[in-house]
């Protein structure tokens, strides 16, 4: 008798956990803009981020115009504070305090997204996947900023003193805050969020099971 109660409770906990798993992707968007340059050009466009579930890879789509031909450093910066222009967004988002690198490097800032390679049209529309950034959790990139730099990011491989810190990518020609773009009221996977509910439900079920088995 007791065993069947315990088993059914454990089963319930598992089902609860499974039911909480998201099946709609999580999306974020940054509307990027910069000041009008001397030649009348202006960087603007959207960067969208899509993550199918907590902990999965993030697909990044970059649609920008008004860029000069060549490579431009592209990073997620720590803060999304634009109160002092793109400067107040802080440094590259780097929660682990490691050296700057390229997006495919073993050692990199979480926010190191490498370079945008722009052709003579000045327009770019690319989609790629990044394995390090995430939209969820305390280390998520929501509310931080994407910044497009004037120069090429040397991916930490240059001999300039700033190479291992910033990739020596020069001034910031465009930036935008990464905002929520999903129909979500409760942001999933953050500490104390859906994950917390799931685990506390399972724990509660186990505790109840123990309690029952003792009292009988």
């Amino acid at each position: 008798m007791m065993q069947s109660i315990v088993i059914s409770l454990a089963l319930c906990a598992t089902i609860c956990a499974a039911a909480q798993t998201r099946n709609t992707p999580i999306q974020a968007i940054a509307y990027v803009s910069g000041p009008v340059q001397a030649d009348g050009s202006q960087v603007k466009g959207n960067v969208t981020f899509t993550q199918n579930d907590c902990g999965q890879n993030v697909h990044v789509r970059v649609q920008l115009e008004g860029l000069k031909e060549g490579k431009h450093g592209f990073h997620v910066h720590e803060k999304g504070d634009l109160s002092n222009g793109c400067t107040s967004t802080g440094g590259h988002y780097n929660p682990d305090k490691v050296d700057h690198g390229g997006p495919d490097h073993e050692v990199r800032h979480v926010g190191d997204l490498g370079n945008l390679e722009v052709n003579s049209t000045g327009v770019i529309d690319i989609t790629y996947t990044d394995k390090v950034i995430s939209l969820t959790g305390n280390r998520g990139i929501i509310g931080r900023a994407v910044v497009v730099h004037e120069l090429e990011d040397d991916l930490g491989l240059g001999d300039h003193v700033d190479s291992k810190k910033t990739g020596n990518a020069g001034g910031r020609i465009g930036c935008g805050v990464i905002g929520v773009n999903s129909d979500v009221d409760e942001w999933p996977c953050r500490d104390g969020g859906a994950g917390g509910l799931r685990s506390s439900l399972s724990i509660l079920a186990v505790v109840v099971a123990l309690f029952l088995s003792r009292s009988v």
Partner: protein
Amino acid sequence: MRIHRRATIHFSAAIKYQKQNKKILCLSLFIYSLLVGTLCIGSEMGSVKIEFAVQMKKGDEAYANTLRKALDGLGEVDVDLKEGRVIVQTESPWSEVHDKIESTGRKAVLSGFGGQSAVALINTTGSVVDRTPVQGVVRFTAISAKKPGVLVDVVVDGLEPGLHGFHIHESGDVSLGCASVGDHYNPRQSRHGSPEASPSERHAGDLGNLRADESGRAKIRFVDAELEVAEIIGRAVVITASADDLGLGASDQSLIDGNSGERIACGIIARSAGIMENFKRFCACDGVTLWDERNKPLTGKERSQKL
């Protein structure tokens, strides 16, 4: 979620004590609730720490005194000449402190605000129709690390004098301007209402109205007891053309958005630095200082190059 966790704690406590004296259990629960109560009351103050980077020289005590005099009456002031840092514990809006520091003839840049904090730059960027010169800053900071409650500090210019609806919307997508940020943030699926109403009688994002004075400036600081900084990051704040009737109007629209009309300005709620988190005094890219930044273009010849 919070209620749930608390319930779990009480529950396991109950099991632990079931075989012991029931008096001990009651007493400990009583003390526990007393403690929680005291913590809640203690954090209800609207005072917040604001950190400014100010151009100062090491050992310039004379200036430090000028600064202390200028800030007299605003709250507790801590001047660090060596780091070029001024921390003020105050109940006044940040813009007032900023203006008082700059009245001494030095430039100041806000570099930290409260504990867990967020900021939204209000403008019409991204709007297809760019006709309003509305600009401003809204800062949010948690009043306690342990419970909900957010201090909201607003200064917005360029508004028509009078009342304007002020809401947090569910999304932070400004690709089509303020039109694409979705509806009012409403995780509890409630009706529209006043910020004073109970959580089930208002949207979580209902922050009431801003009152713009004759010069078009709206300046206010208030505490919303229900919101949390973490849940609003990445969403947007929106200012509307008309006053929000707080759900008391006669029409159906009143229960949706308080008849507050067109969205005239908005900004994404972004992560910002708390106190002592921001040590940058110049742009790492080329060494332009924080204070010169607002006068320099982002690129080109005018921008000084470090090397």
